[in-house]
């Protein structure tokens, strides 16, 4: 259950695909290959491999299927890696009717429909296609245990928070490709009281049954893997809080898409650092620091820089030719290191700047206190202070009020908060605050009856976890996402079935060994960290009994999540206004 391993396997399979070149007569010659990608697979490939890795496999030409102006290179073999959308099929049809290369091997990243295959077969007059294969990676790999479908909620759900049919179909297919890539035929669980998750669970189940014999014929396991589908709206607090670990802070303050961090808006940035690639697979420093909090990170970066300086210093005293030779031997590595040091220095100092400019230290402390200490009067005073602090942005004030109302819905202070907010933010934002309250309060009211008891359990679990992780002393990381309690319940095989029912209850008693957790509405890097810590703990003391993979329709930061909330129910209010 390592997603990097999976994508390495697939990439290797594609680039090392043997050609049965009968047209040419000679054996697998020429060896130079062209690789054609579409807009979806470009992302998948770029996140899991590098250009020099592809060069090593003699892929010397990479282009997009969409590009109409490619030159004819009759002697090249062409590898196509594409998502089987109708759009790509049409591009492929055009390509086959007027082929630019001598031979084609087509790989789809998900199941291709028979009608699509027919369409291709029909246009392959020249019989240039020598291979068609489905591999299954219709998702993006972010960490070895984290994936994303990279689709914003507005594209998946209607305003009333129900699935758009196309969004449901796409999400189902992507999840199916994930299951196939892990060779897993899971028991499916969803969140009781969530239409979104039960609908998706049913859809995935149906798709598995449909392809039972053709694709999902994996060995029966004594403890079958589980797919647990969660609803983002059941834990709205986690994506609302300012994060404090490296990977999630980058997503919050700078933004990271397909492993690319855009630093172009950073003042006085060096040209070479405007766009940097950050991958835990290729960057060992990032691999070691991505889950560290800002304090630990600062120390690590200092160490990194000083170790680099030591190296330059020792190399500065190059007197003999022998020194030079030694240095040249290390040169490529050295150059890489210097690039990496300046990259992380740039990112960390930008994070530091953002924290100060946006007054995050003050905001976050209050946020964390509100989440951890319900109904504390000192916390309430602090909140009022920040709400009327002119230096704090309207966005953060609004968010603070939302967090307060999530934790203290019935508090007598709510009116006062509303009034303070009114004096400090725009009328639109105040409107949104009321909207937010109505969305999440009706949700808690209509939630299943077992809710109260479970809350108690997860409170206990939270306290336990805090002690266990020795992090209770850190004011900025007091909040523990619900996912933590879910994982701890899973590890005891005690995840309550009334809250997380099975779609098809297993006949025999089973245990949880491999779990895929999928957040409808998006997951966060903070939760990815929790999963990572859980997995490391399991691999160590747990003897490897549970392996977990986390995924989401997208990876959220606080702004994106608040925007998603903004859209919830918008349509329905308009509708009732009309009636």
């Amino acid at each position, binding site marked *: *259950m390592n997603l990097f*391993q*999976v994508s390495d*396997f697939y990439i290797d*399979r594609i680039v090392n695909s043997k050609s049965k070149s009968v*047209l040419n007569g000679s054996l697998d*010659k*020429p*060896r130079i290959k062209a690789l054609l990608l579409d807009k979806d697979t470009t992302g998948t490939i770029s996140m899991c491999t590098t250009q020099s890795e592809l*060069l090593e496999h003699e892929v*010397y*030409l990479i282009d997009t299927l969409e590009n109409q102006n*490619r*030159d004819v*290179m*009759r*002697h090249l073999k062409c590898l196509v890696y594409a998502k089987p959308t109708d759009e790509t099929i049409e591009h492929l049809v055009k390509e086959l009717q007027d*082929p630019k290369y*001598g031979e084609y091997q087509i790989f789809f990243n998900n*199941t*291709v429909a028979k009608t699509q*295959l027919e369409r291709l*077969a*029909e246009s392959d*007059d*020249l019989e240039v296609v020598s*291979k*068609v294969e*489905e*591999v*299954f990676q219709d998702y993006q790999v972010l960490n070895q245990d984290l994936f994303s479908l990279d689709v914003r909620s507005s594209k998946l759900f209607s305003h009333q928070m129900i699935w758009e049919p196309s969004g449901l179909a796409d999400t189902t297919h992507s999840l199916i490709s994930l299951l*196939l*890539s892990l*060779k897993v035929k899971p028991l499916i669980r969803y969140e009781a009281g969530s239409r979104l998750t039960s609908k998706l669970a049913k859809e995935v189940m149906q798709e598995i049954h449909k392809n039972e014999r*053709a*694709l999902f014929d*994996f*060995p029966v396991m*004594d403890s079958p893997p589980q797919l647990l589908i969660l609803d983002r709206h059941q834990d709205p607090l986690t994506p609302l809080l300012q994060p404090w670990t490296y990977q999630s802070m980058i997503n919050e303050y700078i933004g990271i898409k397909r492993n690319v961090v855009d630093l172009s808006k950073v003042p006085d940035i060096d040209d070479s650092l405007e766009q940097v690639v950050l991958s835990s697979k290729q960057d060992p420093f990032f691999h070691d620091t991505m889950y560290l909090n800002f304090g630990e990170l600062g120390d690590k970066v200092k160490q990194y820089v000083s170790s680099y300086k030591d190296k*330059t210093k020792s*190399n*500065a005293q*190059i007197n003999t*030719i022998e020194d*030079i*030779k*030694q*240095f*040249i*031997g290390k*040169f*490529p590595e050295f150059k890489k290191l210097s690039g990496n040091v*300046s990259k992380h220095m740039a990112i960390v*100092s930008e994070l530091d700047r953002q924290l100060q400019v946006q007054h995050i230290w003050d905001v976050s402390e209050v946020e964390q206190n509100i989440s951890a200490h319900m109904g504390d009067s000192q916390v309430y005073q602090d909140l009022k202070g920040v709400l009327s602090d002119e230096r704090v942005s309207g966005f953060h004030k609004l968010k603070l009020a939302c967090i307060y109302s999530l934790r203290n819905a019935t508090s007598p202070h709510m009116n006062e908060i509303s009034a303070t907010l009114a004096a400090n933010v725009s009328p639109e934002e105040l409107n949104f605050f009321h909207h937010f309250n109505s969305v999440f309060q009706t949700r808690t009211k209509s939630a299943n009856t077992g809710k109260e008891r479970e809350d108690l359990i997860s409170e206990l679990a939270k306290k336990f976890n805090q002690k266990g992780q020795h992090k209770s002393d850190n004011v900025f990381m007091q909040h523990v996402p619900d996912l933590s309690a879910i994982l701890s319940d899973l590890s005891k*095989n*005690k995840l309550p079935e009334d809250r997380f029912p099975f779609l098809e209850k297993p006949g025999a*008693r089973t245990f949880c060994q491999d779990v895929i957790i999928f957040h409808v509405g998006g997951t966060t890097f903070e939760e990815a960290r929790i999963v990572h810590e859980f997995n490391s703990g399991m691999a160590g003391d747990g*003897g*490897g*009994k549970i392996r977990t993979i986390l995924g989401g329709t997208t990876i959220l930061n606080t702004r994106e999540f608040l925007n998603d909330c903004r859209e919830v129910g918008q349509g329905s209010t308009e509708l009732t206004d009309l009636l």
Partner: protein
Amino acid sequence: MNAVDGPGYLDEPQKSGSELNCPVCAQTLHDLAKLNEHLDRIHGFGEVSNEDADSVNTQLTRSRNVVENSSKAAKANRFELKRDHWIKPVMGKSRCRTCSKSLTQARQAINCRRCGEVYCKNHCNLIIKLNSNAEYNPLTGEWCKCCINCFGNRAGYNEFGAVCNKTSMFKELRGSKVEDKQLRKLQLENRFIRLANGIQQINNQSSKSMLASIRKYTEINKLERSVVPWTPDEAAFACSLCSKPFTLALRKHHCRLCGKVVCNESQTNCSNQLPLMSLIRAASDLPISTEFVDNNAEDVQIRICSACVRILFIKRKFTRELSLPEPSILRIYENMRTTADVILSILPQVLNQAEEFSATPNAPDVALLTKMRRKLLDSFALYDRLTKQMLKIKPKNPAEERIQRAIVFRASMLIQEHMLPLRSLTNAASTQNSSHETTPESERSMNQGYGNNLSIKEVKEYRDQLMVLKEQKFLVENMIASASKQRKFDEAETLSGNLRELNEQVEMIARALGEEGFS
């Protein structure tokens, strides 16, 4: 020892409260009696052999008495796990297979129920479904303790990467479509043969007699209509390919091979007057005689629609292009690739031998080492030559240019990776050997000499040195810039000192190199 298997797969059962979880498989049981029955029946806790009977936990014995009566019925289908494959731990000698901890007390040792190996308690806490023969059976087995190996070796546990080959399905689909197309192609080919041969005959006759030459065009027209019946003009209102309606400006034309009415728009390219001779040459595999007597034969043209051209000629064009020689970029690449293979195959041998050699300098196979090293260096020289050749090629299109750039990039990576570490090696060996390692070729160029008093070797070395220093200078300058940007002035201060030193060195070497400093 099995009676105290102790806290197993999951946390210890809660002693308080009415419900209990089995410590091995976590099944919920209503009371202690039920739990004990469960432990006996499912996990074989009851099957105590004589030798370790005394180690049985007293509590368990007591509770077994309680459930004695109720479990009589259960005994009928009681699960008895095979255990003669268990390795008997020898206290003080046996070690846990995972952590190698020495096992000194019987209480610490556990046999994996599947493989029978001995483990410490911490490393045999996973569970697996086994049948009574201790074989993995995911469906009807019972939960038993197992080690990490047996856990990980279960079928399907560590598998990933499903693929589904659709090639045969694709080829089948393509085949069913191709059959019709093949027939159509044969039909058109036949018509083309008749038409081409017929026109030639008429042409040849017309060159012989005056009368025939007058009748030539009527004859050809008659022939054309006999090869394929033409769609009557009145029946066609629009071009059969682009569907544009015919007007006075958009005239009707007949394709001589399919007989359909098509237009003559240059934009859509629906039909064209094509020279017969080039068509015949493009389909040289067809049985068409090419004994034109008349010199005017080159002028004969026939009208063919684009659909027919495609069916008749596109495959022929494609195969012809494939049989053309490869572009020089690909040809040279093949050579580079072969040379690289040679280098990569000798390199580890040379490094190995050099290591042996330095350990025992008087080893007898010095000659072999020298020979291998020479071969390696020659290969590197060849590789270098090929790379330069590659650089000289003028790419025919942007794609070739990109491929060329990528190949050269890859080549420089390969040299960096393998040749540079080798340099120190050859140097070490050559000082010991005091023999010159230069190839004859580079020796020749060495005699060309330089303006200053340096040998080529020295110039090269100085240049390398200069390159390194300049790179360092650049790095340090960047660091100073970022340090002052972040107002870390003390840091910038030390760096500046560093930079001054570097500058001095750079100048020194540059002076020594003179003219040759800038290549």
